[in-house]
């Protein structure tokens, strides 16, 4: 039966609201305001999980985001479970279920713990060294390594939670709601600056909010009381937005920051239902004030990882904030004054403090004297050389340090304890500063890396800027804020501040033991089980860069990203390699500061919002007729219209036949359409297309190819001359936006002298294309007044027409090789027009066809699709379209490149037609084409770009690009497939109606 270690003096915990939760299947109780960690400690549970490599028992070590050990699997729903959550950051809620990680069958009895006994044989880089040989065995090793890799279990089903994103703009963003952040927020907001304050905990106040100690007073009030009043005063500031439970995840350049707000993680399962779980704030701040505080460092000594060994300041927070005793007989081990604050808090709360073990010779600060006054025993100049207790600490062994601190002397003392608080000094949280591109400087006095002056609009204040004493925090923060915000005075001038100042400092990165280093386990990275021995081994093996040592030993590579371990690793490397820490530098701090869920990163862009979709004005008709859709760019295009039980192949064959035999109807609204006006329109077209546009008559259409500057085909389409200085250009569906941007770019930067204006009208017009031998008859029913005779309305021409009161533009152009008309009408009328055409065509069995049939029909005619038969490496000459390159024009985009040595090579890949020996065999698009399959290595001459079975020709047809293809007409080739080879013959690209009789019929 577990003990209740709760005391009743905490105002931050609502002890009237009891919450039940489960840990490892056992029902336990905590209170509203608890974290999972504080609730477990209140139930006297220290053993929370097992370490990654050696499966050593591990307990709660901190009270914040730096926690390396107490990481748990949250929930057991296969779609909602979350691994590697820090018990110190999970607010307790009704129905919470958590389980230990990295243990089997249970955290108390873990088979994997056998690794601990083999630990001498599996040092750092064991995997790298052992599994390198024989090389062929890697796949066998990999199977076992992968099984043991990773911590926790990923959810196996889609996440049901809802996440979203919000944009936020402010004058001043303050990160951190401790004392310096609160001072900054109040000062900024009082000066009419739109201010946002972020705090990752549920309450503001940092560590000062529970600092109820005689040694720390502001204006004669206890510092916590003074700060409480300041927090209340923030409520009246209209310019200030406070976001608690919000963690700054990333600080990018130019003050663009990402913060994650937990909206419902602290609510009971019922309360959080259907609500947004987490929100990602995308913040643009004019100025940023970082007030993220500092983290307490552990101490590195033999067996410093046992459950019950906790950072000293965390023990203080558990007792003063959560009202939880971390043990009944607590020892404290320190190299600085912080542990004495904990000793005093414990003593005042009635907890027995065995002793304080201090590696320093003496300290004369007021806080130490206060502790001495309370009768707390202090072992000066001593160190802990070992700890005992497997699943929880039972005792410590201590010895006196030698004068130089490198060894221990004298007799060994034993001290029984059930908790050991450790304090190795403080590390400023400079992660966000460095993420933003800031450089750090090293301060030798207390071995800390500090921010330097940043080029961007930001400052760091408080302990993240190296101010660790209360008066320094307030005074320096106030001065920095005033200068940064250009303010003359604030509420924080001339405060009377009393605090204990730490005078005596001593630091030993790796504390000595009575045993040789090889026989000890001084852990550096508690999550990844890397020890000081491993770091020294890496240095002996020649690794010098901190980045290399990190990867070789995995120090700092756990989910905690080495928040606790990095400084000690650096210190030990510097000491061993005899270099200065400042010169060694740090590893790179990358975002996110704490892990983000994928859901938060993605927000609402899941499911139907995963990508943007565009719909044509006739879309609903296609849906009604049960069309299958294809994604073309962002458009949803009708792909084919299957009738009952038809396969795609059957539907496409039927649609193609109908279009050739009688009439087909296609929704061509997605084609890009650009209205071009201006006196230099013709000249502009001459410059962007390869062919000549000067002589195109008004009312006529012309096909054009657009090249990149490298001479490769970029886009194609038909452009119509609507008036003397007025054109309508069409582009490919996917290329529309890029073509318009490119043209506007040329106009503004290369040819600003031209009088030309572009306007996108893609969405303004809906386009109905009717094709086939009966298309003219159908159109004459829809627009009876229009003279459709070949003389009046020949192929490649256009007419304005009216359908009732509605204007339309009719182009006689064809992408199918059939007589074909494209009717453009204002989009709102397009569906009505489509239905009218469909009704008019019923007597001719007009058949709606989709993009697949469109592709088949144009392939029969040998028309290319830019992007399918071209791939950015194909010139018009490669397409056997030499006729489209004007020889008379002075210049056009890409012209120069067409005459480069490489582009005039005769053995370039060129577009050809392919016919299979077996007319029923349809080639796979992308299949390789070879001449001799037995030649080694096989020479791949080209590949298939388009392939279909043509119902009109009753045989398989294909387009392909083949080296020197132009010269190979009639040549036999082979298409090798997985289980067979297919014989093909190279042909011309046009398979049907080579003389264009159908077009002009």
């Amino acid at each position, binding site marked *: 039966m577990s003990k209740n270690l709760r005391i009743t003096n905490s105002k931050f915990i609502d002890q009237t609201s009891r919450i039940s939760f489960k840990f490892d299947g056992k029902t336990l109780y905590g209170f509203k305001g608890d974290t999972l960690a504080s609730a477990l400690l209140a139930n006297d549970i220290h053993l929370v999980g097992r370490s990654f490599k050696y499966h050593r028992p591990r307990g709660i070590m901190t009270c914040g985001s730096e926690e390396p050990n107490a990481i748990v699997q949250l929930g057991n729903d296969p779609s909602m479970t979350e691994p590697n959550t820090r018990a110190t950051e999970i607010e307790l809620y009704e129905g919470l279920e958590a389980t230990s990680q990295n243990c089997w069958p249970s955290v108390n009895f873990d088979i994997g713990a056998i690794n601990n006994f083999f630990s001498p044989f599996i040092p750092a880089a064991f995997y790298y060294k052992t599994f390198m040989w024989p090389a062929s065995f890697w796949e066998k090793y990999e199977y076992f390594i992968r099984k043991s890799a990773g911590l926790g279990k990923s959810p196996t089903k889609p996440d049901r939670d809802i996440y979203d994103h919000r*944009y936020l703009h402010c004058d001043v963003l303050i990160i951190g709601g401790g004392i310096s952040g609160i001072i900054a927020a109040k000062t900024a907001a009082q000066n009419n600056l739109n201010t946002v304050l972020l705090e990752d905990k549920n309450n503001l106040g940092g560590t000062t909010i529970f600092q109820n100690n005689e040694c720390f007073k502001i204006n004669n009030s206890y510092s916590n009381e003074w700060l409480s009043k300041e927090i209340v005063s923030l409520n009246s500031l209209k310019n200030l937005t406070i976001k608690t439970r919000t963690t700054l995840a990333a600080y990018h350049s130019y003050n663009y920051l990402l913060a994650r707000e937990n909206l419902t993680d602290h609510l009971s399962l019922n309360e959080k239902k259907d609500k947004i779980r987490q929100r990602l704030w995308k913040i643009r701040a004019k100025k940023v004030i970082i007030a993220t505080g500092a983290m307490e460092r552990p101490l590195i000594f033999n067996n410093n990882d046992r459950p019950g060994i906790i950072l000293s300041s965390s023990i203080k927070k558990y007792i003063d904030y959560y009202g939880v005793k971390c043990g009944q007989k607590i020892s404290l081990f320190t190299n600085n004054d912080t542990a004495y604050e904990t000793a005093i808090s414990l003593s005042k709360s009635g907890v027995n403090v065995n002793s304080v073990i201090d590696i320093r010779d003496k300290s004369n600060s007021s806080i130490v004297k206060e502790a001495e006054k309370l009768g707390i025993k202090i072992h000066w100049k001593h160190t802990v050389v070992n700890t005992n207790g497997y699943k929880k600490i039972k005792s410590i062994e201590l010895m006196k340090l030698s004068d130089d601190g490198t060894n221990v002397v004298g007799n060994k003392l034993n001290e029984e304890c059930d908790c050991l608080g450790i304090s190795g000094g403080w590390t400023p949280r400079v992660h966000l500063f460095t993420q933003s591109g800031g450089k750090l400087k090293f301060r030798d006095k207390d071995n800390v890396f500090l921010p330097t002056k940043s080029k961007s609009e930001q400052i760091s204040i408080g302990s993240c800027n190296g101010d660790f004493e209360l008066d320094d925090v307030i005074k320096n923060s106030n001065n920095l804020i005033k200068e940064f915000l250009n303010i003359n005075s604030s509420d924080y001038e001339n405060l009377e501040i009393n605090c204990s100042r730490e005078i005596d400092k001593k630091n030993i990165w790796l504390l000595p033991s009575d045993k040789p280093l090889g026989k000890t386990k001084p852990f550096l990275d508690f999550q990844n089980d890397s020890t000081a021995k491993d770091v020294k081994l890496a240095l002996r093996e020649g690794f010098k860069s901190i980045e290399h040592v990190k990867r070789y030993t995995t120090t700092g590579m756990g989910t905690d990203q080495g928040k606790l371990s990095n400084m000690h690793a650096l210190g030990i490397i510097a000491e061993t390699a005899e270099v200065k820490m400042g010169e060694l530098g740090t590893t790179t701090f990358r975002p996110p500061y704490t892990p983000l869920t994928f859901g938060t990163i993605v927000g609402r862009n899941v499911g139907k919002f995963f990508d*943007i979709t565009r719909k*044509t004005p006739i879309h609903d008709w296609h849906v009604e007729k049960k069309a299958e859709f294809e994604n073309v760019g962002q458009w949803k295009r009708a792909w084919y219209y299957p009738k009952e039980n038809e396969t795609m192949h059957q539907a496409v064959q039927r649609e193609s036949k109908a279009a050739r035999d009688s009439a087909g109807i296609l929704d061509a609204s997605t084609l890009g359409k650009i209205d071009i006006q201006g006196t230099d329109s013709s000249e502009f077209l001459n410059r962007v297309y390869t062919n000549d546009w000067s002589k195109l008559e008004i009312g006529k259409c012309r096909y054009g190819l657009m090249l990149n500057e490298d001479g490769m085909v970029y886009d194609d389409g038909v452009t119509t001359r609507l008036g003397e200085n007025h054109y309508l250009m069409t582009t490919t569906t996917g290329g529309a936006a890029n073509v318009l941007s490119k043209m506007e770019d040329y106009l503004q930067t290369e040819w600003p002298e031209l*009088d030309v204006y572009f306007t996108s009208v893609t*969405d303004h017009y809906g386009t109905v294309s009717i094709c086939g031998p009966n298309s003219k008859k159908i159109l004459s029913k829809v627009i009876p007044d229009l003279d459709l005779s070949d003389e009046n309305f020949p192929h490649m021409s256009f007419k304005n027409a009216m359908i009732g009161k509605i204007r339309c533009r009719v182009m006689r152009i064809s992408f199918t090789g059939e007589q074909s008309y494209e009717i453009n009408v204002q989009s709102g009328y397009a569906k009505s027009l489509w239905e009218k055409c469909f009704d008019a065509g019923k007597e001719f069995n007009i058949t709606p066809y989709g993009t697949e049939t469109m592709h088949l029909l144009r392939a029969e005619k040998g028309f290319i699709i830019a992007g399918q038969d071209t791939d950015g490496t194909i010139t018009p000459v490669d397409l056997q379209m030499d006729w489209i390159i004007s020889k008379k024009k002075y210049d056009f985009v890409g012209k120069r490149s067409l005459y480069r040595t490489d582009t005039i090579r005769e053995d370039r890949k060129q577009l050809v037609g392919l016919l299979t020996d077996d007319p029923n065999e349809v080639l796979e698009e992308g299949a390789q084409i070879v001449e001799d399959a037995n030649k080694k290595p096989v020479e791949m001459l080209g590949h298939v770009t388009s392939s279909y079975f043509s119902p009109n020709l009753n045989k398989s047809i294909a387009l392909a690009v083949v080296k020197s293809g132009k010269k190979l007409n009639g040549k036999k080739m082979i298409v090798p497939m997985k289980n067979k080879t297919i014989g093909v013959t190279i042909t011309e690209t046009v398979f049907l109606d080579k003389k264009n009789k159908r077009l002009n019929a």
Partner: protein
Amino acid sequence: MLSYNSVVNDSIKYNDLTISVVESITKINLRGKKRDFITKIGKSISILLPTESNTSSNNEDLNLLWLSPDEWMLYENEKINSENDIYNLEDELFKEISKINYGSVTNITDHWVMINLKGQKVYELLSTSCPFDFKNFKQNKGSVVQTIFNHIDVIIHHKKSNDLNLFVRRSFCDHLLSWMRDAASRM
């Protein structure tokens, strides 16, 4: 006679937020750089072209939005009455501007769909996926911004306090409305 199909017919109401699709509003794109172009536009529609970036000018019937140093969007307040000649404004301007090579006049009535956003929560709605800082925009009636909303290009015109006209390309409209419905449902 062809009938007009609205992209969406409904108007959606939430607490402090109404989203209404207003179709059949004539919209015309105007482009030009010449002095004569600017003068002619002013005379033809009795509104001076706004030359300051991201601003607009208007009269009782028309709104003229600055889009770039040589591009503006003109839109009418009243819906088109399909019984009348719906091309009046376009024809007149085309004759006065395009025909005599002062610039270009292009009908874009159905290129853009106008969505009216009204209520206290319009800016909260926009903050769900629009990266623009609306601080100054909110303070200046008539402001115009071309930005993205859920990755989709939009033009937003500040008509009155908490009353905006948002223009989105017709093909994107259904998707954007669906996004707005989703976002607004949780506000």
